[in-house]
């Protein structure tokens, strides 16, 4: 479980969660240091049409900077970007020498969801390729399985929360069955993410 990466550290980690995701995300986000060397991109399914309180919920518990993703906002390390409710959250490559940036859309629902985990993961895979890890946490639907496949096809790493431990198992099961590099309890995922820090830090 102490999966010390034999590869260079990742630049971004995309995380998808649904039912039971708030608690899981709090545990994950709060475990990462302020100088964590990657960006976190987060989609959590929520009832639409409600102002998101996620940032207010997460920020005080986290050393990382936590923000809601705004269109065209640069994506930089040490920051967690949360998808706003009722928008898809995508990543765009930066132009000449600029970092990648967030892109939003109100395109139709994908997998009955907006934001959709697949949409985030597929676009992030395009931009970050092997420098991306995708993490699928608890949830009661299939969103994220296709996205995680795209992450791995682009050379990135796929991590899935152990379905036996997850609050809702359907989403991790679908993603695991579509193929994952690591199936770990949340503590193991957190450890893997922390090890990215050690991989880069002197």
């Amino acid at each position, binding site marked *: 479980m102490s999966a010390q990466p034999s590869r260079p550290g990742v630049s971004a980690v995309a995380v998808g969660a649904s039912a039971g995701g708030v608690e899981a995300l709090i545990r994950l986000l709060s475990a990462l240091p302020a100088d964590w060397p990657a960006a976190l991109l987060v989609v959590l399914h929520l009832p639409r049409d409600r102002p998101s309180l996620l940032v207010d919920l997460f920020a005080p518990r986290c050393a990382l900077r936590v923000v*809601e*993703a*705004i*269109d*065209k*906002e640069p994506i930089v390390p040490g920051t967690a970007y949360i998808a*706003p409710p009722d*928008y*898809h959250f*995508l*990543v*765009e*490559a930066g*132009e000449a020498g600029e970092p990648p*940036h967030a*892109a*939003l*859309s*109100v*395109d*139709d629902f994908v997998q009955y969801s907006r934001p959709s985990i697949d*949409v985030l993961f*597929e*676009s992030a895979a*395009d*931009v970050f390729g092997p420098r991306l890890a995708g993490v699928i946490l608890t949830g009661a639907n299939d969103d994220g399985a296709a996205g995680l496949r795209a992450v791995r*096809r*682009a050379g990135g790493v796929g991590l899935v929360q152990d379905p036996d431990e997850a609050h809702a198992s359907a989403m991790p099961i679908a993603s695991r069955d579509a193929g994952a590099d690591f199936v770990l309890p949340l503590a193991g995922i957190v450890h893997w993410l922390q090890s990215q820090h050690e991989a880069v830090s002197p």
Partner: protein
Amino acid sequence: MTASVDARTTDIELKLLIDAIFHRFHYDFRGYAQASLKRRLTAACERFDCATLSQLQDKVLHDPETFPGLLDYLTVQVSDMFRDPAYFRALRERVVPHLRTYPSLKVWVAGCSSGEEVYSLAILLREEDLLDRTLIYATDINTGALRRAEAGVYPIDRIAGFTENHRRSGARTSLSDYYTAAYGRAVFDKSLKKNVVFSDHSLATDSAFAEVHLVSCRNVLIYFNRALQDRALGLFREAICRKGFLGIGTKESLNFSAHAQAFEELDREQRLYRKRGDA
């Protein structure tokens, strides 16, 4: 689309397809945000039975039936009446008092899609007793959507959501005052569009066409890259009168634009801006 086509090849095909559409149909999608465009065109490949974007390009160039259908993939027709009620509430509270001081008003709804935002504004202005002295320009590049906007007819099952949004926008009246229901459809009152001009206008290729007191352009800029956003915002800056108003989508921002300095924040949360006196 086949998974065997690698991502870089798809990027090349995408660029060529967009160029082909520009040269053949004069619709300019070259400055659109790539990631969501790619997703929608990938979906279009399936719909038009094409294995690759190159095949889709062949089809769009040689089969005249294809482009009109493809336009609904290139643009996104998702809208709601009083979407983000707090935005309309802020318009009422922070902008309307200024608008009242003008003897006549012009409002530009850019990227109006099938009209939901236009009717929302018209109803709000009617409630504030300003509609009679207002001319509204409602523009979009999707002519099918413009026709639906002009018709002002929506499926009745959308009305519950519209009504709830309207109520939360600080409404002074009931939405049911503005439509008649028949055969599963809600037909909005013709008097709302008496002073509305619907027209085909592209923020990517056309110029500013009038001086206006308010531009409302919501969830359109998210589909543009930064350069094209700047072009569109440049048009708004040109069109908006001295100390006039601009409203954009709740998750859009002027912060990353070359025109940021020309506007001051009027309501930060609701993305309402006012053009500076010297801009």
